[in-house]
């Protein structure tokens, strides 16, 4: 009896894997989508927001059926320093109309939906299966081994997330270094929908995203985040692992401290914590890009480190979805040509370049290095909050003009003009 063999075997039913499965199945390929959780999404978490453009190209108007939470119409960045804070706040109500700009969402529900779309197109979903290693034949990836089972396929797509043991075991990527990843922890906090609307000053059902920089991470590189869902908010912090290693700060307590701070506590007052989760965030961009393809294998999404963090914009899901789509396009062409060698799959990288994924990673290639600058998390939030506080303060003492206030604060905070100018210049160019 001839061995059963799939056209494509996709490991991980997250946004990259399910998008790849959806498009391949739609094109008539025999696809097996393998997920280690008992249901797609049960192992997945993120901060909270997906920019919609990538999925809208694949499933136009996806928001009509997808379990998204709120379209984001308000963006806020807050610099924190003890009792002081200063915020940049932007609202654009156009983002709250189709095609929308971005959505908050929760992964357990959303990822399950996307995987179900792949199933509807004919992909076979197998849950509760941990893939142990790639199956190598004649030096080529020919399938996977899971427990006692071996499953064959012409091509294996690694969509197994940031801790991609599969891509590592296939020799396409190496273990990341501490400075290339951040640890994110998050609490989902239940609040009534109307309280969320009024507290975050959005129209009913619209969403707000709030980023925090400064002492929310106790000065470590990273930041805090808050995303409003329908009847919960996702609140968390991300800290660079290299700095965390030196810090002796327990992550769970950093988040509790952030929650209790005077600028966050009122936002979540009366809420009830319903879940606690953690995840690694790939943060090195092109600096941690693996070999994206090999004989019989492609690497997508977080497994390939496809994330951009600019502080004010954090993108992962749109890259994951677009890389899944590029993988599908590549595999469909490889099947037509009957060539699943590295050569036959090399169109994947070109497809990522022609699309926005590698183009944007290239554009922001120096951002990860810039974001390691500790002044961004200590000196500058303190400077900004202090300056703003002085601006608004009236105390009966002799009046001081704006320029003198700025100069005085710079001097008091021991901020070097040279550093400020250089960091400003670099930030302007790299972010």
């Amino acid at each position, binding site marked *: 009896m001839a061995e059963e063999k799939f056209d494509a075997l996709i490991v991980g039913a997250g946004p990259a894997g399910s998008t790849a499965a959806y498009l391949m199945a739609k094109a008539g390929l025999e696809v097996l989508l393998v997920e*280690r*959780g*008992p249901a797609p*999404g*049960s*192992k*997945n*978490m*993120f901060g909270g927001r997906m920019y919609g453009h990538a999925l809208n190209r694949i499933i136009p108007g996806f928001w009509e059926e997808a379990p998204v939470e709120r379209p984001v119409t308000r963006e806020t960045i807050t610099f924190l320093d003890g009792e002081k804070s200063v915020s940049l706040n932007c609202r654009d109500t156009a983002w709250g109309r189709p095609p929308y700009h971005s959505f908050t969402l*929760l*992964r*357990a*529900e959303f*990822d399950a939906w996307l995987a179900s779309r792949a199933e509807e197109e004919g992909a076979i979903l197998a*849950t*509760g*299966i*941990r893939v142990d290693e790639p199956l190598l034949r004649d030096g080529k990836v020919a399938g996977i081994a*899971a*427990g006692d089972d071996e499953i064959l396929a012409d091509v294996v797509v690694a969509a197994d997330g*940031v*801790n991609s*043991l599969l891509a590592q075991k296939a020799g396409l990527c190496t*273990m*990341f270094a*501490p400075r290339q*990843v951040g*640890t*994110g*922890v998050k*609490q*989902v906090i239940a609040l009534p929908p109307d309280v969320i609307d009024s507290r975050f000053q959005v129209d009913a059902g619209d969403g707000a995203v709030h980023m925090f920089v400064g002492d929310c991470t106790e000065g470590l590189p990273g930041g805090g985040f808050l995303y409003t869902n329908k009847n*919960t908010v*996702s609140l968390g912090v991300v800290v660079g*692992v290299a700095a*965390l*290693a*030196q*810090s*002796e*700060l*327990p*992550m*769970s307590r950093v988040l*509790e401290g952030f*929650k*209790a701070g005077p600028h966050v*506590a009122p936002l*979540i*007052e009366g*809420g009830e*914590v*319903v*879940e*606690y*989760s*953690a*995840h*690694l965030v790939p943060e090195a961009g092109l600096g941690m890009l693996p070999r994206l393809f090999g004989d019989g294998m492609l690497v997508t999404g977080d497994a390939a480190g496809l994330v951009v963090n600019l502080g004010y914009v954090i993108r992962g899901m749109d890259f994951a979805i677009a890389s899944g789509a590029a993988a599908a396009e590549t595999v469909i062409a490889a099947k037509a040509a009957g060539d699943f060698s590295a050569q036959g799959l090399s169109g994947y990288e070109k497809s990522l370049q022609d699309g926005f994924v590698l183009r944007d990673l290239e554009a922001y290639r120096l951002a990860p290095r810039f974001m390691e600058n500790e002044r961004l998390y200590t000196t500058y939030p303190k400077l900004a909050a202090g300056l703003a506080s002085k601006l608004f303060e009236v105390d009966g003492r002799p009046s001081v003009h704006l320029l003198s206030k700025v100069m005085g604060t710079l001097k008091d905070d021991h901020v070097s003009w040279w550093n400020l100018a250089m960091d400003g210049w670099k930030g302007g160019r790299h972010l």
Partner: protein
Amino acid sequence: MKELGIEQLLGLDKFEVDDGQAHIVLDKAVCASCGAKPCTWACPARLYVLKDGEISFDYAGCLECGTCRAVCPHGDRAVTWNHPRGGFGVLFRYG
């Protein structure tokens, strides 16, 4: 809001604990020789606890993030890291 300890936080989550197999295994000898032991604070679930000078680790409340593997100065020599077997481990209801 009241401050929540790690037991309370993990108590909010749903786990399907695999009694038959630990997905993370430590080499106690390497851990004993480690000076810094960053796992004891970096692990978001605080599962690495120093007891009588020795690291004790309980995989049952693992959030499967991979921080321990990333932060460990001894890498794979100390931490043999894997995902839990299929169907087991943490089950996010929100994510």
